[in-house]
């Protein structure tokens, strides 16, 4: 597969990146390229200019900021997977990152790219949604913080505007227990359904691949709030959700999987 013709420039700084992206309406950032390049090869994305942010090493970090952890957008999945800080403070994120694709994908793909791409089938966005993370973006009109719940809008659609750069992801501490269930057929596959469950005060449950964007299970969360048992809450997991059908799973099977996996995840929380 051969992409259509495009120009390529390297961003030297965040400001430089913002300037370059503004220079061309059809321009796109490229980080790890592991979501964008496949689309370009199928000619489903045809940017005229690629602004490579892969060299912005300042945006690759994992920091302890007291009540939350801050992860730079350019941090690769493998760094999230192996970070000692995360393994101590937020092991869930390391675990979820370890399930993304295969080692090659994890060495190229970035957490910022995964979040900015906004694919409902991706692992990290749903985990961040359950963790009540927020995204920091900078653009021509300055810096803003967007809660995960408002960030993921629809199919490959996020709250970012095309000239905004995602720079950081903030994840609150205080997770007392968690579970992540990725259901797939082969080790390196995308999730057919994934469930992220987090206990941080209340219990939050988010789904991978149950819709066009990562989703919170309001049915399950409501049930738990009103004192339902795990079985009862899991039974309500897919309430109001109409998951897609594909070769791996019909909508009906996805609903079934969501319930089973939610039950198993909640059982692990305790």
């Amino acid at each position: 597969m051969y992409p259509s013709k495009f120009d390529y420039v390297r961003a030297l700084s965040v400001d430089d990146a913002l300037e370059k992206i503004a220079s061309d309406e059809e321009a796109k950032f490229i980080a790890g390229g592991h979501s964008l390049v496949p689309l370009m090869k199928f000619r489903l994305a045809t940017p005229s200019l690629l602004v490579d942010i892969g060299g912005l090493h300042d945006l690759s970090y994992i920091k302890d900021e007291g009540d939350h952890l801050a992860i730079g957008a350019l941090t690769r999945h493998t760094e999230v997977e192996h970070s000692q800080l995360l393994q101590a403070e937020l092991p869930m994120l390391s675990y979820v990152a370890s399930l993304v694709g295969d080692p090659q994908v994890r060495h190229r793909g970035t957490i910022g790219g995964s979040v900015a791409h906004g694919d409902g089938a991706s692992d990290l966005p749903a985990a961040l949604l359950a963790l009540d993370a927020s995204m920091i973006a900078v653009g021509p009109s300055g810096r803003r913080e967007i809660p995960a719940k408002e960030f993921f809008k629809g199919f490959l659609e996020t709250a970012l505007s095309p000239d905004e750069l995602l720079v950081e992801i903030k994840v609150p501490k205080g997770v007392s227990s968690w579970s992540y269930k990725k259901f797939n057929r082969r080790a390196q596959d995308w999730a057919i359904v994934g469930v992220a469950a987090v206990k941080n005060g209340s219990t939050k449950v988010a789904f991978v691949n149950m819709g066009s964007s990562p989703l919170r299970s309001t049915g399950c969360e409501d049930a738990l709030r009103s004192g339902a048992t795990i079985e009862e809450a899991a039974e309500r997991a897919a309430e109001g959700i109409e998951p897609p059908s594909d070769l791996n799973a019909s909508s009906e099977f996805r609903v079934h999987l969501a319930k089973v996996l939610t039950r198993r995840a909640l059982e692990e929380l305790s």
Partner: protein
Amino acid sequence: MSILGNKVLRLEDPKLLSVGGEYVADLKREAMLYVSYVTSTVAHAKILEIDVTEAREISGVVAVYTADDVELAPMASMFRDKPAMNRPFLAKDRVRFVGEPVAMVVATSYEVAADAKEAIFIDYEPLPVVVDPEQAFSDEVVIYDEVGSNKVTTFGEITDDSFFDGSDVIVTLKLRNQRLAPAPLEVRAAMAYVDQDGRLVFYASTQTPHAVKAELSRSLSLDATQVHVITPDVGGGFGAKATQYPEEILLGWAALKLEKPVAWVETRSENMLGLGHGRAQVQTLTLGAKSDGTIVAYRADVIQDSGAYPNVGAFLPMLTKTMAPGIYKIPKVEFRSTSVVTNTTPIVSYRGAGRPEATEAIERALDVLARRLNLDPVEVRKVNLIPADEFPYNTPTGATYDVGDYLGAVEKLMERSDYESLRREQAERILHNATKRLGIGVSTYVEITNPFPSSEFGGVELTEGGGLLIRSGTSPHGQGHRTAWSMVASEIFGIPLEKIEVITGDTDVVPHGVGTFGSRSLQLGGAAVHEASVAALSMAKEVAAEMLEASPSDIVVSEDGSGLAVAGVPASKVSYAQIYEKASELGRKVAFETDFKAANSTFPFGAHLAVVEVDIETGKVKLLRFVAVDDAGKIVAPLLAEGQVHGGIAQGVAQALFEEFSYDPDGNPQTGNLADYTFISAAELPSFEVVHQETPTYLNPLGAKGIGESGTIGSTPAVHNAVLDALAPLGVEHIDMPLTPMRIWRAIVDSQG
């Protein structure tokens, strides 16, 4: 001590693992042009118009050709009575499957070619589509008007129900042996140019270089002497590269027309649709037996999907027929198959090619029978085995099994797997109503290798410095013939492997050959090298005898293998280098060429056992253990044999659990890339437990049978049986492959009403 039977490391690997192989895609020539094909996006349609004007104007586009520009007769087919079904090089008035080439673009780069393809507009008038082979059988939608029916060919006949007279119980089942994509790591590729002498030089990624040469010379009306085919390293073929494709042959045509080097390397997405597919049978099976499990009669009625243009796939049910009874002594066997065309990618041979379908059928049928009779599946197999003292054994379907020890294989399997304790653990889990159930599946197989007894070329020559040059008509694409043929010759001469060169795949150097498919290479090509080595050694002995003033019959290979000596007089010795020189002085060559022809096919066999864990809530299957007893006669190169077994098992497991090439009802491919076509990886597999058994055949001097396909043949039904064994207590009787979580979940839900 013999080198044969030792775990010699592959001589091919240092290069492949360091600097890398040289594949067709690596070949560069000055002023080379790149070819890409515009392929049909619809499954069945009339072509009303092809507009290439815009594409021709794109800078860097050298030529765009459609069927009107290519004045070549369609490709030849083995079904001579249906010339209307011969495949055109480019679709002319009709397209018959998604992926069928319609136009050829020649450009200065693949990128330019891709742009040009987007600027070619084809006006299609859609026609009714037939994808399902059973529907094709009904002839409601016919895809060749001239023929008036979708039926290509029929093998065998079936009679009426009195066929099963004398049975206490009759079981029937319907199996879909699904369509698979071979998906070799190296896609199809070719490069062609005209040399200074005006000959067509053609580099091919193929399993059959001499057949490529023949097809080029036939299609392009060239004298055979004017075609030179070279096969560099090939990254897999699995049988599908034993067929010549229009996209390849047309490259030769373009090279001649443009008088420039032209290259074609397809993309993965093109490969998934353009390279032939495999399997694709619908089988209706009936088995009659006595209440102790003794089989009385077996019938298989098969519809073979041939894809849009009948190729070797339409013929493969012939092998399914031959192998239908498996390793069992079945008094009466009936087989009928009908091959039909559909609006899908043509079916060709794919690892096992007709035999996995036979094994899957009888092995599933036996499990259904065992369950009906409430007998252990292993016991039902044991009562029906062909006893070891009845070989050579003539089957009711026309095969002569050479040698076998079937009971030996089954018993080794039981012992190694600790079958009894597996059954205990299974019962334990059922008792505790566990979510993760255990399934144990057994299958046995016998398969036919070198299925159409043919011959293969081998030449062995002593070279300057005392080395050997081997030339072989086989065409390795991962098997390791360089290693094996060197071992075979070294065994005779004593010459170390490093001093042996092996040439394959160059039609100027290897005068003729058949190629590598059907697990034929060792038993024919290896045997030819063996015979040529024996003959060349006796020529060397004659030269040595003159040099040492002894009788040729007293000359033996020296103990260190560096030359020949007089028996019992080690000091009286000449080196191979000296022998070469002496022979040259005398104007002689120590060289021998032969074509080894076996009197018959050989029949490797074995028994496989799979242990699976099935999550009955999600339908996910985990393969916990795989035990394989394979008997392919004498094992010449154990490391290579084991590699074949491992890869074969992996592919067979993949058919049971993961792979299916599927189409929607409009004939649109649903699994046209490797994200959707879920082939297996090491992570889904346990370490295989491989048990050896050797029952040498008398059909070649090496005592060897083929082992390239065994793993694929035995493992699919073992895993299929294992999953259904786990689900039986839940009332599930049948699920078609691949056994995906969704299908398993569905079956459980349905069986519980």
